[in-house]
């Protein structure tokens, strides 16, 4: 019916009610719609029923979505009686039915889009390179086209600049036809039947605010709070409200007509061509401001900052995220923290500052989630072919370390992770599941026969025996041969079990999703017995999002897709347009243990005083003020055609304005923080901080905040400095280091003279001549004495053949065994190694102990000990300084060159 825009220099509650009353707006009978969830929540907390606009958009669109079974209905959302309660948890509880239904519909939309896109990629693009890229990046793509569609655009209104964009536009066109729900938001907000949209708005507002609308009744006012900028779908919604009979739309604008911090309001509310009316300024009693309300104005216009302007404001420099996190730990004032890129800051704060508060668990982080995700990822889906099982080493390692792979008959002393680490080189080149199984079987046979015959690895024997067996068996110089029979069998069973489990998924022709998800749920539940019931339920509730798929018969590729959607890595949530993805506060309650809130939550300060000091963090030149990109990958604003109907022309202009005005929006939020007051009207302390070094990049203070600093920080002229005023950034030196701890090492109490250690195999002892630490890590205490670098494997091959001959194995047979054991190398590599082998049968075993020997250096000395040319007594293992748990490494490049424990030695020289 009509729209008004009312401005005030202060929106403070409850004084604003009086100001509005003077302009004929009745606060108590109006519907309140806010730009953010935080503002809606704050209004509800103070007794004013309100909902954020994101929720209103859902309310007017979702009930018309097609659904399998029950979708969502307006009545699922709480009405005024429940909205009126000030307890957010109670409200969240009453909105849970709506929330679950909405999530389920949105999940279904993502699934349908994905299904349709894959069909298009296969049938039309024939899995071309572009098709694969489009499918691989589908979540970003869907987000972009959903954004454009909600801004009113259709594919034909965009032009492409390259082939990929062309395919993306064509795909978008296909998705519109294949997935009806995709266009619902656009149809309601931008469709030709405006009356249908108007009805949806009326119905939604009538239900939520229990309105009695009618021609014979006075118009109900809808007050819109906090829109210092708006987006195209919001603009379209405003037009529907405007067109609704019996509704009067009132924008409440924070503006005194002159302060530069309010410029963004003026940009969005003085555009007659956008059909948003000019600002009215009611004449009411003015609300007194604190001196700091003037601070940003002075700074922006270059006027001196008076002491009163900067009183209570501090600017803090943190050297790194750890210092920032520690400051949170010391946050005795219980400051409310806000930051750009708040999720990252919150993560740092929780991880480094209060890890004990960080109980958020994602399924994909838990071993059971790792197991299930990796298991599904093993199923390779190739267009036009049957699914195959493809194993990569990382996935295998992750699956095994999860502990959930059912491997029967595992002996107590067999650690599959350790076995896998030693044996993986042998599986190089294996790809398909059956190749892995065959090779595991071959390894098991080799361990039992060839390696066993020369002294295979055994458990429960003395160190002396272990070293002698190992040093005497040239094949055990490579780690995949250093397995016990039990370990080799377990590895075979493990790989078989993995391939079996993945094959069960791959063999699915079709399955009912309800059945599959039920099974998934019970497996997840069983895998979370270490978690509290609360956390476990929260994790499992994620599966409810797939409720709309219950009746669906899905194929194997769709099973894999659903599991990825449910358990997998989320799309980067950092929206291209900061703060526009505003969710209802209610939906975030379960995450409310956060330390750092989004910057946009500061909008609450325009209405309500803050009971706590304010801390704005991460105000570096890299992050504040923020930039905004309205159109996501693979498109850009330039793709949108200029030949547009009126509504879409405005939509485009709104997007452009948003991009251009993003910096001003942040200036407004900074102003709100600087002018914040406590409930008694006294200015609240405000801390502005930034991190000087983040992810290795040196950062500077934000230029906007820099304006508040003294321009002559180092000038000697005190008078000029005092005249200009301004703050001097300080360092927070509370530091992170509070406790000093050292391990305790027991004093020496020798019961023997140490001579017995010299009875160890001389080839093992010889390594101590090169480096005592190597002996300790490789032979004495480490999990295997074998070499582990690939270039060593190739060096060893030819020499191992000769060493086998020294163990009375005929040459042909020796070659046969080594070819079998080094089967993952090429024939050329083996031939080269054989040609380059320089040992004789007699010295081969000694040489293998050191991989060096002909030089007059420590390797030469060690070789002589290994060859029993030099006496074992020349090795002193007791030279380590007293109190050291391990001998100090020599840390010389030459000594470390052939060291098999180089990659796990703290002291190793790294060239």
């Amino acid at each position: 019916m009509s729209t008004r825009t009312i401005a005030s220099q202060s929106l403070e509650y409850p004084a604003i009610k009086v100001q509005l009353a003077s302009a004929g707006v009745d606060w108590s009978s109006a519907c309140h719609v806010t730009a953010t969830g935080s503002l809606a929540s704050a209004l509800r907390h103070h007794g004013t029923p309100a909902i954020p606009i994101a929720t209103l958009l859902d309310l007017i669109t979702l009930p018309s979505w097609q659904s399998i079974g029950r979708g969502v209905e307006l009545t699922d959302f709480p009405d005024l009686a429940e909205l009126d309660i000030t307890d957010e948890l109670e409200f969240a509880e009453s909105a849970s039915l709506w929330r679950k239904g909405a999530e389920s519909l949105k999940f279904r939309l993502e699934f349908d889009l994905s299904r349709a896109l894959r069909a298009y990629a296969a049938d039309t693009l024939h899995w071309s390179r572009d098709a694969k890229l489009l499918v691989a990046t589908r979540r970003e793509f869907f987000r972009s086209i959903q954004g454009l569609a909600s801004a009113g655009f259709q594919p034909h209104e965009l032009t492409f600049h390259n082939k990929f964009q062309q395919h993306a536009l064509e795909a978008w066109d296909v998705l519109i036809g294949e997935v009806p729900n995709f266009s619902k938001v656009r149809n309601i907000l931008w469709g030709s039947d405006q009356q249908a949209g108007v009805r949806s708005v009326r119905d939604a507002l009538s239900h939520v605010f229990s309105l009695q609308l009618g021609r014979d009744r006075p118009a109900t006012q809808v007050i819109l709070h906090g829109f210092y900028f708006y987006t195209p779908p919001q603009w379209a919604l405003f037009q529907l409200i405007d067109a609704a009979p019996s509704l009067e739309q009132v924008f409440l604008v924070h503006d005194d007509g002159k302060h530069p911090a309010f410029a963004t309001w003026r940009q969005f509310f003085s555009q007659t061509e956008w059909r948003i009316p000019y600002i009215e300024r009611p004449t009411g009693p003015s609300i007194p401001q604190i001196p700091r309300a003037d601070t940003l104005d002075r700074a922006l216009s270059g006027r001196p900052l008076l002491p009163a302007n900067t009183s209570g404001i501090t600017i803090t420099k943190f050297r790194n995220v750890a210092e920032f996190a520690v400051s949170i730990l010391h946050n005795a004032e219980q400051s409310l923290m806000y930051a750009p890129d708040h999720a990252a800051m919150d993560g740092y704060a929780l991880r480094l500052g209060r890890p004990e508060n960080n109980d958020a668990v994602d399924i994909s982080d838990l071993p059971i989630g790792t197991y299930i995700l990796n298991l599904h990822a093993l199923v390779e889906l190739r267009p036009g072919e049957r699914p195959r099982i493809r194993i990569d080493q990382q996935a295998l390692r992750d699956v095994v370390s999860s502990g959930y792979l059912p491997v029967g008959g595992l002996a107590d002393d067999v650690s599959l992770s350790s076995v896998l680490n030693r044996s993986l080189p042998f599986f190089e080149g294996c790809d398909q599941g059956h190749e892995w199984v065959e090779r595991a079987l071959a390894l098991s046979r080799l361990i039992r026969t060839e390696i066993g015959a020369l002294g295979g690895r055994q458990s429960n024997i003395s160190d002396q025996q272990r070293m002698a067996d190992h040093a005497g068996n040239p094949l055990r110089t490579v780690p995949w041969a250093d397995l016990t029979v039990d370990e080799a069998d377990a590895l075979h069973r493990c790989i078989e079990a993995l391939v079996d489990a993945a094959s069960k998924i791959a063999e699915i022709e079709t399955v009912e999703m309800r059945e599959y998800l039920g099974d998934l749920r019970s497996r997840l539940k069983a895998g979370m017995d270490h978690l509290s019931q609360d956390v476990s339920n929260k994790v499992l509730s994620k599966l409810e999002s797939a409720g709309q798929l219950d009746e669906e018969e899905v194929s194997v590729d769709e099973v894999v897709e659903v599991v990825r959607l449910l358990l997998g890595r989320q799309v980067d949530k950092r929206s291209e347009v900061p703060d526009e993805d505003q969710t209802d506060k209610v939906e975030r309650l379960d995450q409310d243990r956060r330390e750092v809130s989004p910057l946009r939550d500061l909008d609450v300060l325009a209405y309500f005083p803050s009971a706590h000091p304010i801390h704005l963090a991460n105000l570096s030149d890299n992050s504040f003020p923020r930039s905004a990109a309205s159109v996501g990958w693979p498109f850009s604003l330039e793709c949108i055609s200029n030949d547009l109907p009126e509504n879409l022309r405005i939509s485009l202009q709104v997007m452009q304005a948003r991009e251009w005005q993003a910096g001003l929006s942040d200036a407004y939020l900074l102003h709100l923080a600087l002018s914040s007051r406590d409930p008694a009207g006294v200015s609240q302390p405000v801390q502005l901080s930034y991190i000087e070094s983040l992810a290795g990049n040196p950062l500077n203070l934000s230029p906007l905040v820099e304006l508040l600093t003294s321009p002559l920080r180092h000038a000697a002229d005190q008078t000029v400095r005092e005249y200009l005023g301004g703050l001097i950034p300080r360092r927070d030196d509370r530091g992170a280091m509070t406790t000093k701890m050292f391990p305790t090492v027991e004093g020496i109490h020798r019961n023997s003279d140490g001579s017995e250690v010299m009875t160890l195999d001389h080839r093992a002892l010889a390594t101590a001549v090169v480096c005592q630490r190597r002996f300790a890590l490789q032979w004495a205490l480490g999990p295997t004495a074998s070499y582990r670098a690939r270039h060593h494997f190739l060096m060893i091959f030819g020499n191992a053949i000769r060493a086998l001959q020294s163990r009375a194995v005929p040459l042909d047979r020796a070659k046969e065994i080594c070819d079998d054991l080094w089967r993952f190398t090429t024939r050329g590599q083996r031939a080269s190694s054989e040609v380059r082998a320089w040992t004789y049968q007699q010295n081969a075993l000694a040489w293998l102990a050191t991989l060096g020997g002909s030089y007059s250096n420590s390797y030469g000395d060690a070789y002589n000990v290994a060859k029993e040319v030099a006496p074992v007594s020349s090795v002193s293992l007791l030279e380590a300084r007293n109190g050291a748990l391990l001998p100090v490494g020599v840390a010389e490049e030459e000594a470390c060159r052939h060291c098999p424990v180089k990659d796990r030695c703290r002291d190793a020289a790294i060239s």
Partner: protein
Amino acid sequence: MDRCFSSWGSAGYLDYDGPLQPMRQDLSSPSAISFHRVGNSEKQAVNAAVERVAAWRAEDAEAGIGILCRANRQAGLIKDALAREQIDCVTYTGGGFYQTPAVREFRCLLEAVNNPDDDAALLEVMETSWGGGIATSNAPAPLQLTDSESLEWIRAKTQLVDWSTRVTEFTNGSFDRSDIQNLRHRVRLLNSLTRRTSPLNLVTSMIAGFQPSSAAAEATSAPEGLRYHRCTSHLLTILVDEFEGGSATLPSMLEWLRLRIATDDSEDEPVDPELVQGDRVCVALTIHKAKGLQYDRVLIPFTGAKFIRGTGKGQTSGSIVDHGGSPRLLWKWNPRRSSNPIQNFQTSDAEAQVDVAESIREETRLLYVAMTRSRNHLVAMVRDSPSPTATPQSWNDLLHMGGIR
């Protein structure tokens, strides 16, 4: 300075359209830039640099001084030479992060927690700054152990014997490892926490609970402790970027870190920003690191190094160039035992010519960056004359092109 830049712009080595406005008044003054003649050797350049920095320090103890070098090694040379003259100087050069003690010790921690059966890993981690935390009598709160786990922790009191004792008491053919059992029990407890929280959460809990930086500070020095702290914090941000939201497991994290330590020398060690910019600092740094930084006085000591060096004996060199829209590798090998290098291109090939031209452009851009880092005074060390070639071979040649006086 503008004359230099304009001449490079005219020769096509630099995209330069004249000075930015507003121009710094200092840059237009005759004293803003000067060229000092030095001999051809690196040593002479180092000595001249030390002399210049000493003079600047004597003139103004408050000035921030930047010494911009082409390579890490040169920055190290300057720092050492200044240290001999008792002039404080820090280096700010690239790479080296994954080889710092904090990262290598973190690898030890992961190694032990990933496989508590590995005795060598258990003892190795106890040697590091993490050891004290693991040995502490009560489980640190950030680990969030349950009551029964906390009790287990207390019961598994960790007291280890030193290496000498372990060797001396070798009896019946075996090392006595009984002292490691309790430690193993504690580390197993840590490992088991991954069943209810993410490995990243576990890592951060351990950082908070075991406070390795404190131990590093006590064991070495406060600045080393701060360095340890910086590096641990930086590593955590990298781990979060790399693993958060994906399927992070201890083995995958360990494997990733091992690889980085062994092969990645490009990640820069984070520095204390106060040491590399601002007043009173004296920093020897590479030009790549100097982007975005400014100093009151800037010295460019090494200008004689050739852009394109010959391929030494036993060495290979290569670059990838554009070959009609597809990449072409220009490759050269100079075998030790042969007098003729082997290469897959002719010097006269168009791509090779383009490669040389691009190298000159890249070096010109670098020199431009170096010359625009000073607020008040820039000194470049140059040789008496340029190379007698048509195209510039070194920064010295570029500066002569600009008509130095």
